[in-house]
């Protein structure tokens, strides 16, 4: 199972990276979503995979016994999913506003803060 998941994680990373290397903002954003999923699956798989047994303590027990999934990566990923969603929503709105202001979705043309052909910094003392 871990081997297949490792391959799948690699595919997620490759797809995410490929999209993030684009110059179109929207593709970069989609790439970020894939990248986030890739990282989540990476953490999940690194915590080892146990099938179909959620880490829930039986009503008559004091502690979790028997075979169950590792709860720690799940807790971490739960936080990560929510954070990456808010990150994605923020970037998306930022991209929208940038497009409205600059009229471009190409990162190469977004040079308001760092205009091309900068003059030298002052040479005095």
């Amino acid at each position, binding site marked *: 199972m871990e081997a297949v998941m490792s391959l799948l994680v690699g595919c997620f990373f490759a797809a995410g990276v490929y999209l993030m290397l684009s110059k179109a903002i929207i593709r970069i954003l989609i790439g970020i979503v894939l990248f986030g999923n890739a990282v989540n699956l990476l953490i999940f798989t690194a915590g080892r995979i146990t099938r179909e047994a959620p880490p829930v303590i039986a009503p008559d027990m004091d502690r979790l016994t028997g075979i169950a999934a590792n709860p720690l990566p799940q807790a971490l990923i739960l936080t990560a999913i929510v954070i990456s969603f808010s990150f994605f929503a923020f970037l998306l709105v930022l991209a*929208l506003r940038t497009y409205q202001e600059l009229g471009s979705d190409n990162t190469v043309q977004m040079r308001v803060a760092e205009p091309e052909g900068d003059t030298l910094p002052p040479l005095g003392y």
Partner: protein
Amino acid sequence: MQSGSETALLIGLALPFAGAAVAPWLMRRMGDRGAWLLALIPLFAFTVFVSLVSTVASGTSVRGEVSWIPSLGVTLAWYLDGLSTAFALLISGIGTLIVLYSGGYLHGHPQHGRFMSYLLLFMGAMQGLVVADNFMMLFVFWELTSIASFLLIGFDHEREASRRAALQALVVTGLGGLALLAGLVVIGMATTTDTLSGLLAQPEGLRGSELYLPALLLILLAAFTKSAQLPFHFWLPNAMQAPTPVSAYLHSATMVKAGVYLLMRLNPAMGETAIWETVLPLFGGATLLVGSVLALRQTDLKLMLAYTTVGSLGLLVMLTGFGSDLAVSAAVLYLIAHALFKGALFMVVGILDHETGSRDTRDLGGLRKAMPITFAAAIGAALSMAGIPLFTGFLAKEAIYEALTHDSGGWPLLILLVAILGNATMVAIGFAVGLRPFIGRQRETPKHPHEGPALLWLGPVVLAITGLLAALLYGLFYRTIADPMTTAVAGSAFANAISPLPHVSLAFGLSLVTLAVGLVLYAAQARLRGGLASVFGAGNWGPDRGFDHVVAGLVRLSAAVLRIVQNGRLDVYITIAFITTAVVLLVPMVIYSELPSMPPFPALQLHEWTLVVVALVGLYSVVRTRNRLTAIVSLGIQGFAVAVLFVLMGAPDLSFTQFMVETLSVIVLALTMTRLHLSPTDHRPWNERLFDGSIAIACGVAFTLLLLRVTQNPFDASLSEFFNANARIIAHGRNVVNVIIVDFRALDTLGEIAVVAVTGLVILALLRIATPGRIRGRS
């Protein structure tokens, strides 16, 4: 040493730093009178050093230490022999007068307190430098004097010339500081000692070492930059941008002599070699010649003094490296005489500037009636500088000529000629500063001239009188100061014998020749200036201009580097980041043979295979899509596939969250995309696709291999077991994941909620602050 005097010495060394801390407050509260109070600090140090003179003169060095950084073996260790004590007396004694003088000179200046603070900081650093025994302490105080000098030169920071001069001095002396550090490390490696006293105890250890040459070169670089030797002389005249008290104190009497101090200090351990006795006289002599010629060119009295200071430092280096005890004694006498007369003359120029509004030799004349006390001090100092009998300058000059005529040969003769020429310039400049402004016809000056307040003339008067008394009481002076200092520098006992009265000898004959040549130069200075000006042109060349070019070149270079590494292109940054990621993951795995072993064919059930395939199809269509609706839908497909995978692998909580988030993402994306009117089609040409694709595949392979390797290692489940065991007992919850989120890591969750809330606010703000009227739709 008794603990009482040890404590007094420590207080004397530490007080200037304490004074620097309170000076701004004190000067604001007390005005000029604060200077009298602050002058007690150097005065106290002076008395402490005076009390040590008899011990040191008897041939015993004073040593002691306080632990500083014990873990590194660095101690605050001091070592006072004749050399250190003479320097310490000059620093604290002249320091007392300078503090008083500054009280009058910067009268009413809004930053008077700050100035005093910097001055005391320098004083503390300089005292520390000359009494330091430990290498690390020597280096730290050496750098501290450079920093204090930077602050003082740039004191008038609203003028660009000041800022430039301050930076230049810092760069040049800072370069030397680094060389000093390296040099001391090399010396430490060669002799396995980290103290000066330890080094002086085994003088042959360093000379015999194969590390002698690198150590020497580094030490020379340090000394030559600090003491403004050719070709690093240019920073010193520029440092005259500082207020005159600074020029008198740092840039003539004390700091610039730190380089000479270093050479004198190391003379017993590094001297008496062929290279030492060639390089020092060569550079020193060249500096003396250049300084002298450039001094004659000036019309600004302060610059005349500055260039003769450069020349004098050259003379000191030349004598230190000449290689005889007589020359060393001449260097010692000249060093003390120079500190006294040059400090006094600088202060005189400051008074002239302050009370007449000009320090140009062409503007000043006939001030003897208006400023009689200043005139008396000036002529006293000028006579010493000219080497007239009865003054310390005469002792120094006699000693120089006696030392240089002692050996015969071409090399000493050449050095003798250079020394005569340099000394003749000293005569001319001494009188040009100390005599010419006061005699002749009185001229119109920007301010009506009158005598300055006592705070101003006290310093030069005391220094001029000291210069006379030291020569008149020459027996005492030799016994207590000059002989112990010469002994320390030469490394063997030495006794001076020159009397301040004229006597028939070859040296006195040369003195007369020097005086005659000097008077001719004095009389002809105006004409010489014209001649030199035509020779040197506009002076638009040389190391001073070179400094500007270097600085401008640095700015251009860094701008060029910045354009490459910080070019403002997101795609370049991302490309670099992911290439780095792939390399960092793959290279160590390959180099250290940590690649995972081939896993067995996985035994997955059909529905699991199906989900994996669904996720892959989703990914593929996201990457390949030419249509934005397909992009959104396929993004959803891979997301939901991940959510179902979570369910199958015992993570229902993750699955629910993922479902919700994916749904929301798709909705938000769909809403935004329709507004954006963007095409998600990939416009990359095939070569870019190939390049980006290779990076992406490399990253994917790297992460796959990493994860395979990780999962093939044994698993440490102790943390998870803790949660499993305690979720119910401690936190009273059965769903372990939920318990971790809301209980064990509740603070993290709070942070997460805060992030979501802030993001929501930011999104709202972004959407609200629409700025109509801005350029829209610009391509």
